[in-house]
């Protein structure tokens, strides 16, 4: 590897010759491959969430959280295929799509014109699906250790088949928010806040874990059982985020696209760095010791924050956006505890709070309009909280939502699954 850069010496700008230079079919291959590559990275984030959450729960609830995670990803894959994708993207009226695109025939896969930014529909479908799965992953962590397995799985089907696609149709589907100019590059709001709102709703309806909040206002923290797993999950999420944000450039068929994607990747990385460093420093200042679990949340918060606008032209600004995300998350964690909202993994702080911040930041530093950004943020809450709330209440009133006190004490693994996570470890 030898690298001698002719750095910063402006030469011929590409933009003019770009479209002439990459053939349409070559661009089709690039674009398609970008979706597949990025989609595979984002799919891996399902593992990231699984490990993060398995690290943050207690041993006795570990198999249950793992099961919920692999189930939610599988359910998302099926529901988004059966109805979600179509509701989100096909014949979007402004407020919702239709079911006319369900069960699409892959014979049409090549039908999108290749003259201009063509790509395989299947690759795009895959890329969109993994985003949908991410939204529900956020909920599983927040509601862990007390929500029953089957009701959660049913909620996952509703979330990935209905809730997420509706908001998605308003935005990426081309609906009213897009027409208004709402700007959310890779989904700080569309994925992370939407997931975060549902997580918040679930936490409120479920109530906190037994023993967490004393009647005297005293908080008894419940430490996660396995920090290496939490760290593993965080790094996997970071890794997958390069696909999440990088792939959201949606095209790789020209030098301009390739360059834009690279900038997105760099901004994504440096925002996460900023989030980590900010969370470490702040936890040291606030608590006189570093809190690893907060540092990990800081990374996620930095990533979530930059997700709405990772195409910033200034890397330094991206670092700041990420750092502020990390700070807000670090502050939100004890605040939620004070409000007796028991979020097992910090999902609300890292995804909802940082997601709102990141979406606003696009209105401050980026190309977005602040007011429109605010409208988009509020719209997400206004849609998701009631929809998911009603659905949670229906579950509560029918098959029940929360495990019994005994099950909670002895652990979900024993009660709802056959498999303890660590049968040999005392």
């Amino acid at each position, binding site marked *: 590897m030898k690298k001698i850069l002719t750095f910063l010496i402006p030469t011929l700008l590409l933009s003019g010759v770009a479209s002439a230079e990459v053939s349409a079919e070559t661009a089709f291959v690039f674009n398609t491959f970008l979706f597949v590559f990025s989609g595979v990275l984002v799919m891996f984030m399902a593992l990231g969430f699984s490990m993060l959450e398995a690290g943050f729960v207690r041993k006795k609830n570990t198999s249950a959280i793992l099961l919920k995670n692999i189930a939610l990803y599988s359910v998302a894959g099926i529901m988004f295929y059966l109805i979600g994708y179509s509701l989100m993207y096909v014949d979007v009226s402004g407020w919702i799509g239709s079911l006319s695109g369900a069960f699409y025939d892959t014979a049409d896969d090549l039908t999108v014109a290749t003259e201009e930014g063509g790509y395989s529909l299947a690759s795009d479908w895959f890329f969109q699906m993994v985003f949908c799965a991410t939204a529900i992953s956020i909920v599983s962590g927040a509601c862990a250790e007390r929500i029953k397995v089957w009701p959660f799985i049913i909620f996952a089907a509703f979330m990935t088949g209905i809730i997420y696609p509706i908001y998605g149709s308003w935005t990426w589907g081309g609906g009213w928010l897009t027409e208004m100019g709402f700007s959310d590059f890779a989904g700080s709001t569309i994925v992370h806040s939407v997931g975060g709102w549902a997580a918040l709703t679930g936490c409120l309806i479920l109530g906190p874990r037994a023993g967490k909040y004393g009647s005297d206002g005293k*908080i*008894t*923290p419940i*430490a996660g059982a396995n920090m290496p797993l939490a760290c593993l999950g965080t790094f996997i999420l970071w890794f997958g985020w390069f696909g999440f944000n990088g792939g959201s450039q949606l095209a790789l068929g020209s030098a301009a696209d390739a360059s834009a994607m690279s900038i997105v990747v760099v901004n994504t990385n440096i925002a996460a760095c900023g989030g980590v460093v900010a969370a470490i420093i702040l936890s040291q200042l*606030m*608590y*006189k*010791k570093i*809190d690893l*679990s*907060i540092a990990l949340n800081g990374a996620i918060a930095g990533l979530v924050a930059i997700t709405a606008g990772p195409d910033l032209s200034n890397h330094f600004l991206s670092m700041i956006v990420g750092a502020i995300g990390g700070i807000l998350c670090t502050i939100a*964690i*004890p605040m939620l*505890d004070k409000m007796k909202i028991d979020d097992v993994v*910090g999902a609300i702080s890292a995804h909802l709070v940082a997601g709102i911040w990141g979406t606003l930041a696009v209105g401050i530093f980026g190309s977005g309009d602040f007011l429109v950004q605010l409208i988009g943020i509020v719209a997400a809450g206004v849609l998701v909280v009631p929809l998911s709330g009603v659905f949670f209440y229906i579950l509560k009133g029918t098959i029940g939502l929360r495990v019994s006190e005994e099950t909670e004490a002895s652990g979900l693994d024993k009660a709802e699954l056959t498999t303890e996570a660590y049968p040999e470890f005392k």
Partner: protein
Amino acid sequence: MYYSKYREVFMKLITAIIKPDKVEALRQALTGVDIQGLTIVEAKGYGRQKGHTELYRGAEYEVHFLPKSRAEILVDSADVEKVITTVSEAVKSGKIGDGKIFVTEVQDVVRIRTGERGAEAIK
């Protein structure tokens, strides 16, 4: 009915609650005075040494129990004072939480392998 006046008991069980990082010192010290057996169990203890306050994700909580090791040594009655002294010296740091030693009477011991009984079984 709490009083055993029966006194012809030749063996004692010495139990020591000590700090976990003193187990190896204890073993070496006992070997030094020719006591060639002990059984250790991991424990957690609560006493004058009061645990401490920890912070996790911004919330304070008290850790009441501290990790301890619980060592059992079956000895001939004649060795009790020697073992108490040996154990004390080996594990003492002078700081709170050094732990306790207590002595109970043993009415019989069996070495499973040979079936030997009584003091023979721990020779």
